[in-house]
């Protein structure tokens, strides 16, 4: 029985980087994209058991406020069908669940099976009636298993930065959103301010990584710094959203500029 791995390697050639194209076929770059995705998937599987605790510790609980803002800006309301992409252990999905109620539905997608199992366990432990409206799905942000124009709102919390092909992910988000609906994408802010960038870098080196090392996850959290440096600025995110077809896109800074949220309307 064959797998799709080889087939996907060929299909993924359409997202080969410019560096790959200079090499001709770009098969090496295709393997790099595919292996980068697998490495990140493995990383998030490894940190799943302590992910929630570390989020609380590292942000002093502030991540909860930022996630509430993300949900609020998505304009999700009672009865809506919403997607939480890169849902991780489900923080935003649980907030959306309460927002849309039992008349609505929440599709929570992540590529890490371990994170999804953690989320499902939390769903069982917390037991609130409205949480019945959450469905966990293992999926790829680059190939969403939903038809066009399906969702009334989409949220992404600290996920877009980890996707290997951000333009394609934003195009997929656009595809599955109903016209007139909103995507709210929360993440670290890649600031153009030297002060903010230096502060972020200092905090990662002197607070985040040392704390993560106590959980045996030094290398996994060192990844955070490079992922922020390779992320897009607010302006670049706005441009990407408009290129994908969104009629309006605005990036807002949060947490003193350390965090940011792209709000894009189809």
């Amino acid at each position, binding site marked *: 029985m*064959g*797998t*799709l791995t080889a087939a996907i390697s060929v299909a993924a050639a359409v997202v080969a980087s410019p560096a790959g194209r200079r090499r001709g076929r770009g098969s090496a770059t295709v393997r790099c994209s595919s292996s980068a995705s697998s490495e990140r998937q493995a990383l998030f599987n490894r940190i799943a058991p302590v992910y929630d605790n570390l989020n609380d510790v590292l942000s002093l609980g502030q991540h909860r406020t930022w996630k509430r803002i993300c949900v609020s800006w998505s304009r999700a309301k009672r009865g809506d069908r919403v997607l939480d992409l890169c849902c991780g252990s489900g923080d935003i999905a649980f907030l959306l669940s309460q927002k849309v109620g039992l008349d609505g539905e929440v599709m929570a997608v992540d590529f890490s*099976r371990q994170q999804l199992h953690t989320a499902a366990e939390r769903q069982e432990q917390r037991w609130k009636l409205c949480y019945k409206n959450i*469905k966990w799905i293992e999926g*790829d942000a680059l190939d969403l*298993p939903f038809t066009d124009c399906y969702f009334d709102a989409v949220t992404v919390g600290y996920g877009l930065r980890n996707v290997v092909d951000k333009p394609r992910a934003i195009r997929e988000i656009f595809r599955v959103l109903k016209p007139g609906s909103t995507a709210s994408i929360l993440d670290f802010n890649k600031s153009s301010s030297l002060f903010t960038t230096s502060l972020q870098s200092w905090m990662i080196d002197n607070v985040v990584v040392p704390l993560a090392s106590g959980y045996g996850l030094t290398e996994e959290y060192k990844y955070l710094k490079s992922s922020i440096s390779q992320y897009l600025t607010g302006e670049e995110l706005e441009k990407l959203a408009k290129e994908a077809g969104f009629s309006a896109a605005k990036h807002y800074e949060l947490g003193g500029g350390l965090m940011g949220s792209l709000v894009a309307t189809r």
Partner: protein
Amino acid sequence: MRRTVTLLSRHAGGGGDGRSIPQALSDVLVCPLSKKPLSGVDSIPSLATAHYCCPRFRPANLAAPVRVLSRSRYCEASGSLVSDAVGVSFPVVDGIPSLVPKDGKFLEDDQGKSEQDSKL
């Protein structure tokens, strides 16, 4: 190996074996590659399933379109969601459907596949 599919009757929740998913969820999901509805593989030989992704399943005398006799979305026998459009099945693990393209598997046939046939 011929897979036997039973037509789904509507059921509200996941099965006790931890593999199945609610009908409502399987109705919503589509193949991540083709974006077409997921459907079940039924027991009628190759005529009934659209293995158009694989050249050896394109008999010259077959009139198009091929009828898919079963529209059930979830294959209880294999515990998977099936995309006839690309001839791929996606597993359901502990009640969570896995629709990551790279985790899909080409559908088996009873004559066995060579490694060459399984790669595009």
